[in-house]
């Protein structure tokens, strides 16, 4: 196994993040090189950079980090390289929670309801996941439980669309569901950042328990790990950060699946050591994808969620084939 020293890995990821942030501030319908950013306070280019692209960049980092981190934590907990908030239904439950608040149209007066709804959906989703998969947490029961959650959430969203009062409401919900970082403002950053931070801190506290779970549940308990506490931290941490992310960007899949998988060999496969690099790399991947969708020459900007699914689905397939081959 070729592992990379931890400071080097984190340094490289941070460097990539800085470079991509610069690119993200420059890229778009008009390319604005960095020396034009501070041209003049009333220069349109400066306004574009600081009021449109800066929030979008920050959101990309926050959401990517949240997805990378929670993906790593869920893979560690389930001891399953095919787990992530998207596949196990946590993201769709968050979307369902958010859509419910949209459906009741309370957002114009109470915009805070959206993240609250999404977080309730996400925490409820992962709590249901842990309860459904129960003590015998085999890979199969987790995937089945995730499938049930995805089905329930999709049905709920469909119901909301079906009963939506106006075509405009349908349009709003669908557009949001596709997952994008476009046209976000500093309000969305304010909405998501504190919750993603709180959730991430809770998840980061799981490094030791996740390491110990390498030995299975009995092994971890014999090492003095309180699995009840681990589950509560996981449910709250993942639920809050995924809920807050989905609330501001819609569902962006596969980041949580792909990121930990790419980094695992570099950290010697230790689930706890994977958490921080996964958060950084998740931010790198989302930011890179978002810069890319802005540079693609197309009439309407490609939605980030769609782009990630386009890259992620074949990756998932390859992973599945690889796992099967190893099992035979």
């Amino acid at each position, binding site marked *: 196994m070729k592992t990379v020293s931890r400071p080097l890995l984190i340094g490289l990821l941070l460097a990539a993040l800085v470079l991509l942030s610069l690119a993200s501030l420059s890229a778009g319908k008009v390319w604005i090189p960095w020396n034009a950013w501070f041209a003049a306070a009333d220069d349109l280019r400066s306004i574009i950079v600081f009021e449109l692209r800066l929030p979008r960049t920050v959101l990309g980092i926050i959401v990517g980090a949240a997805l990378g981190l929670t993906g790593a934590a869920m893979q560690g907990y389930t001891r399953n390289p095919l787990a992530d908030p998207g596949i196990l239904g946590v993201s769709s439950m968050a979307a369902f929670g958010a859509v419910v608040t949209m459906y009741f149209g309370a957002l114009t007066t109470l915009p805070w309801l959206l993240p609250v709804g999404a977080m309730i959906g996400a925490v409820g989703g992962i709590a249901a996941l842990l309860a459904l998969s129960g003590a015998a947490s085999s890979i199969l029961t987790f995937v089945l439980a995730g499938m049930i959650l995805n089905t329930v959430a999709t049905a709920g969203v469909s119901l909301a669309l079906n009963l939506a009062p106006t075509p405009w409401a349908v349009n709003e919900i669908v557009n949001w569901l596709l997952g994008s970082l476009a046209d976000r403002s500093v309000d969305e950053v304010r909405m998501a950042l504190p919750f993603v931070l709180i959730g991430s801190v809770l998840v980061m506290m799981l490094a030791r328990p996740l390491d110990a779970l390498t030995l299975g549940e*009995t092994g971890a308990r*014999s090492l003095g790990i309180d699995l009840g506490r681990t589950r509560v931290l996981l449910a709250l941490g993942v639920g809050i950060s995924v809920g807050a992310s989905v609330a501001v960007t819609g569902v962006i899949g596969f980041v949580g699946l792909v990121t930990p998988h790419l980094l695992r060999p570099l950290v*010697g496969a230790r689930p706890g050591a994977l958490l921080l690099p996964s958060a950084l790399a998740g931010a790198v991947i989302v930011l890179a994808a978002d810069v890319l969708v802005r540079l693609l020459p197309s009439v309407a900007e490609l939605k980030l969620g769609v782009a990630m699914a386009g890259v992620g689905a074949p990756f998932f397939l390859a992973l599945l084939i690889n796992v099967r081959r190893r099992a035979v």
Partner: protein
Amino acid sequence: MTRLSATNLKVRFGDRTVLDGITVVFDSHQVTAVVGANGAGKSTLLTALAGLRKPDGGQVHLEDADIHGLAPRVRAQRVGFLPQIPEVAWPVDARTLVGLGRTPYIGGRGLSQADDEIVARALSTTGVDAFADRNVLTLSGGERGRVLIARALAGEPEWLLADEPLTGLDPGYQLDVASLFRRMTQDGCGVIVTLHDLHMAMRMADRVLVLGEGRVLADGSPEAALSPDVLARAYGVEARFWDGNAGRVIEIVGRRA
């Protein structure tokens, strides 16, 4: 000398009674082998003694403390447990896996230099330092088994409870592990193992506990506890004994009519 004791221990799975009122006191400085037929409750007894399963009745005491009253970390520092199924979820290297044995001591921090030294000692004691940097999932079953024993050693427990630690090891390594357990008892540790191999029980244990139908059928020195009479009741087999060069040998003649 520390004591680990079970008082009137009862465990049920659904409406099946697995342990039906077991009372037993273990002293450290001894290797105790728990034997019995499949489903006799050996693993259940071991997990209950390790404080990993809350019994439906009765208590487990470590010295005078109820084991379920201890903080999980404190319990883990004092009682090491080796599960029967050697689960390893990720392709970590052997040294990292053995390092997990330090988990009860380190809380949130990383391994200190002292921890690293303890890990290195556990690796060399079990003779696995040659492949300390290899991916555990690429090791043979026997090699992996010894790495997991090293993991338990790295926890420096007062008690080591090992569920079928010899399964999958060749005869040479079985003897190595047996003498390793012997040395641990000389250092003051108490070792309790479940075994299927009655020859090894005879050979490595100071004391044998025979379980059957959730109760203790016999308890004593290997020669006394593994009598033909007890084996007939525990396993439904006819056995006879003769003295070989390396101790008493059990010959299983056949199923009892």
